[in-house]
């Protein structure tokens, strides 16, 4: 029951509609008592030949009006209680979403997308069950159970009631026990199913290997074994699942046995009438649901509170990236100075430093090139600048202020970062380009696209700028995606533009067009280009060569060619590559 307390903020917030819903529920419980009683009365009047036209009309009018009343009130409580449950789900979902958007990259390392999605779907469902089914069962079990019992005792006979309800608590026990067992077995069945899922996934991904070794038959046999297992596990589920209705039947059967036996004796002794007896049998039937629901309630609460635990755990996570009080709101400008002594990713082991002694100054309006092998640490340098990680020895300053002293808006809104893994959203190309500001005009979007040399490609697509990207839409080539990402960053006309190996999938000629275009429009603005290809950085004022997390060579293009090092080797190799490409065409 603790879960109701923990959710009390919501119940308080929706006090009015919950009260209305529960009140309707209670009134329905009382109204429900009337039809069996009227049936009993009419039966008695008919049996004793006391019926008159006016009494018949009288009772039937009451019956019809309670029917109408029940209908309206039932509608009301359903809408109120189930509506509130949906509302709770929506509120917590929004909390989760907003929370996710405020989390740092450590959080997303710790929780995989699948886990987060599971919390946002299954656990929210568990919570909805508490706010809907839980409240309903609780209120319903109490109101229907109590009123029916009272009616049985006072309207019919207290001795008959006390004896007939003896087996009924078994209903609650049965539903609790069976529900629990079912849940466990269901989990096993789910596990078997997800194993089957993994099996299919693996085989389809490895289909070439299977075909190569000619093992289709064996793989099918293995699959059959897995489906057998699924069937076995589900068999266990059905053994329990099919028991619910029969168990109710059995327990109610005992109750009916007692009712017929004791009721018959009481009628023989003229203690109750036949009409009372008929009423009573109907009342007993009405107790089935509330008694059974009590058992179910425990299971709902158990699962709901486990769900809420998991959700609260997520909501308790904190980001390590925080804006300082009184942070600088003036947008970044001026010189960028990097003075990092050492940096390590939070979960990496302490000995292996990711970055070591990275020192450089990039004057306002200048261009810095960063080159090096894959995994040398180029991206890590840029991530620090983007404040994905704040914990390092050393300092990065922009225009004299530590970048951690700026507001996030002052810093990030003025950096145009083009990542390696150019992630596009499933939206139109236009919306992807003007991601940073959807209010910008088509001409602004086109200008950016032209600068990124992607405009012509887009126009050639069937729907032009309205073409959907992603699963539902066209599949763009890696180079096209990269260029759209560049357009997305160019659009905001950033003070600092960062290209993180974002020209790797475009050919040399296109690269040249894009870089010279950027140079033309970005006069006086600062640029960092990290690349594998030397031609991307050769015009930079300073180039640093990174290896193993530290700077191993630095200088201008010409200076670096003087040194017999990685840079020179790389440059020559790439020159040759170009020659072959040239021959190829």
């Amino acid at each position, binding site marked *: 029951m603790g879960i109701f307390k923990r959710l009390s903020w919501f119940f308080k917030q929706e006090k009015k509609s919950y009260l209305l819903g529960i009140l309707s529920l209670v009134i329905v419980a009382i109204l429900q008592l009337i039809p069996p009683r009227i049936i009993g009365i009419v039966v008695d009047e008919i049996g004793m030949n006391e019926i008159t036209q006016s009494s018949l009309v009288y009772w039937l009018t009451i019956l019809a009006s309670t029917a109408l009343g029940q209908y309206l009130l039932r509608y009301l409580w359903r809408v109120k209680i189930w509506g509130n449950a949906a509302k709770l789900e929506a509120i917590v979902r929004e909390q989760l*979403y907003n929370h996710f958007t405020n989390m740092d990259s450590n959080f997303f390392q710790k929780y995989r997308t699948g886990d987060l999605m599971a919390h946002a779907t299954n656990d929210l469902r568990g919570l909805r069950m508490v706010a809907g089914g839980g409240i309903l069962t609780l209120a319903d079990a109490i109101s229907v159970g109590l009123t029916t019992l009272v009616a049985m005792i006072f309207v019919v006979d207290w001795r008959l009631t006390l004896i007939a309800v003896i087996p009924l608590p078994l209903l609650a026990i049965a539903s609790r026990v069976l529900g629990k067992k079912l849940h466990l077995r269901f989990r096993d069945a789910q596990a078997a199913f997800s194993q089957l899922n993994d099996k299919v996934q693996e085989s389809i991904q490895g289909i070439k290997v299977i075909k190569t070794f000619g093992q289709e038959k064996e793989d099918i046999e293995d699959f059959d074994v897995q489906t057998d297992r699924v069937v076995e596990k589900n068999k266990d589920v059905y053994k329990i699942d099919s028991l619910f209705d029969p168990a109710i039947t059995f327990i109610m059967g005992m109750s009916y046995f007692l009712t017929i036996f004791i009721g018959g004796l009481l009628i023989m002794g003229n203690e109750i009438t036949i009409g009372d007896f008929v009423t009573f*049998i109907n009342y007993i039937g009405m107790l089935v649901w509330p008694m059974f629901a009590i058992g179910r309630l425990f299971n709902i609460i158990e699962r709901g509170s486990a769900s809420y635990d998991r959700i609260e755990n997520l909501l308790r996570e904190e980001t390590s990236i925080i804006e300082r009080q009184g942070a600088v709101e003036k947008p970044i400008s001026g010189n960028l100075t990097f003075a990092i002594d050492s940096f390590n990713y939070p979960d990496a082991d302490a000995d292996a430093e990711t970055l070591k002694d990275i020192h450089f100054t990039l004057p306002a309006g200048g261009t810095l090139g960063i080159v090096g092998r894959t995994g040398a640490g180029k991206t890590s340098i840029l991530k620090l600048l983007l404040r994905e990680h704040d914990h390092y020895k050393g300092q990065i300053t922009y225009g004299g202020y530590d970048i951690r002293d700026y507001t996030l808006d002052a810093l990030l809104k003025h950096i145009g970062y083009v990542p390696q893994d150019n992630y596009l959203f499933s939206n139109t190309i236009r919306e992807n380009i003007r991601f940073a500001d959807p209010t910008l005009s088509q001409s602004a979007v086109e200008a950016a696209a032209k600068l990124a040399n992607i405009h012509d490609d887009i126009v050639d697509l069937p729907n032009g700028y309205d073409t959907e990207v992603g699963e539902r839409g066209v599949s763009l080539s890696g180079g096209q995606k990269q260029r759209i990402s560049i357009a997305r960053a160019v659009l905001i006309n950033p003070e600092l533009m960062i290209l993180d190996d974002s020209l790797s999938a475009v050919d040399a000629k296109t690269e040249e067009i894009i870089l010279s275009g950027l140079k033309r429009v970005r006069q006086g603005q600062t640029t960092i280009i990290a690349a594998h290809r030397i031609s991307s950085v050769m015009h930079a004022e300073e180039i640093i060569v990174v290896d193993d997390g530290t700077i191993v060579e630095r200088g201008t293009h010409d200076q670096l060619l003087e040194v017999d090092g990685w840079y020179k080797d790389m440059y020559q190799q790439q020159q040759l590559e170009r020659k072959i490409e040239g021959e190829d065409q």
Partner: protein
Amino acid sequence: MEQQELKDRRSIPFKEQMTILKRILSYASPFKKQFMVAIGFSLALAVTNAILPRIIQVFIDDHLATGTATLRIVLLFAFIHFGVTLVRMVVWYCELYLFNMASEKTVQHIRNALYTKLHSLGMRFFDKTATGWIITRATNDTEAMKDFWHVFLTLIQGVLGVAISLGAMFLLDVRVTLWILLFAPILLVIVRFYQVYSSKNYNEMKSKLSMLNSKLAETINGMAVIQQFRQEKRLQKEFKETNQSYYDSRFSVVKINALLLSPVINFLYTLAVVLILALFGYDALSSPVEVGVIFAFTSYANDFFRPLTRLMDSLSLFQDGVVSSSRILTVMDNEEYVPAQEDNPDSVITEGKVEFKDVSFSYDGENEVLKNISFKVNPGETVALVGHTGSGKSSIINVLMRFYDFDKGEVLIDGKSIKSFPIRELRQRTGLVLQDSFLFYGTIKDNIRLMNPSITDREIVEAARFVQADSFIEQLDGQYDAKVVERGASFSSGQKQLISFASTIVRDPKILILDEATANIDTETESLIQEGLQRMRKGRTTVAIAHRLSTIRDADQILVLDKGRIVERGTHDELIERGGLYKDMYELQNLGLQQA
């Protein structure tokens, strides 16, 4: 995708739905008997439901009303009622259990059939179909069949319940039953009304939920971009709107269900009771009426109305089931089969001579990716394929492995058409080493044996020793029984490569096809791999795609491919002398090697 699927759902015309239904139902035919027995129990259940009120009615009318009841009679009726209840309990259990098991087995049957079908399809299908799509068909869509089958159970139970309770009422009083039948048209109108409104709203709710969830997943995946562009606030606002619109449509589903599901059925039931009491009461004004019959009628009316709620509720599941069925059948109807072989079970590969004669091939029937390719590899010789991405190297392997059928020319093995060998023989005699070694979940042993039970543990160890994979395997915890997690994530790419070498070599193929890895392999295993390749090639006909030209310097013949044609051919020395594309490529790599 989701939008498209939704459109599918709406646009399946009734006639097609029936065809789909008929076809998917045919998968249940092996379990017909079990379904029939279950339905038999359904019938028995409906009968016991009808008997129970009758017992009480007779008890009231014949004994209580007449005052002839004795202790013995009271006990007798209590026991009869309890006895029938026990029967009802057993019957009910059997019905549910048997029906559930029969539908479970049907789902298994469909699944196995679907999986077998998938394996009969050629690489063409797998290359152009997204993995996720195939997986969903095999798992989720077949799983949805269970709900679908349950709809049938609900339907059967409902129809039987309604029919038997009507029959029981007829037996008691024909006139009153006819009056109650007046409710039937009202019910039909409500069902129709519900179907129209609810399916629209329900589909809308489902599509909004999937929109909501894909938005959420997309945000999580694209979080870095969102945060870099400081778009958190805007996306929060957008999500709030989507969330709100999902809530709204959920709320309208709640309203429709509250308006048209059990509350209204309950209302109609009570009105039916009013009608029953009115009719019997009116009669009673003039002549006596048996009161037990009134009780029985109110019970039957309850049985008559009760199944309708569940029936209406499961209409949406029915729709979902039809959609899933049609998707399953799409796979079943696919005809992109594995290229056909002629039926000569006795053909065997003895020498391992490979010859391509004027082979042309295209993936799409339009653009040829191989044009008049001719070459010959004598037993034990090595031919190397060299060229840029898209030059046609992999297509030659696709043709040689019979992953795809070629269009023109001939591929000969030992002088006979490749089509004349049984696929099993081809697979046994040709070993393909893929560039990305794919490991399966299991143990090292499993990955070398790959489900071929005739390979002994000793052969596995020998194969591993041959390719020098033994040194790292023996250092593992559990050695050859060491666990391999999904896709071999805990091994380096070099180690994975060595394991896949072992699995190829343990089968002792006559013809070896190598697709060398382009990716950087860790330097530790690099030399082992090179040596392994050399050893494997010894005495085997080899067709190798080489990215590292140094590894194939000793090849008997090197074919340089460009845009589907062989542009240069010869030994290494001949090609270097010629000073063409090969020479440039070779020099480039030498440079790269020097600095590494």
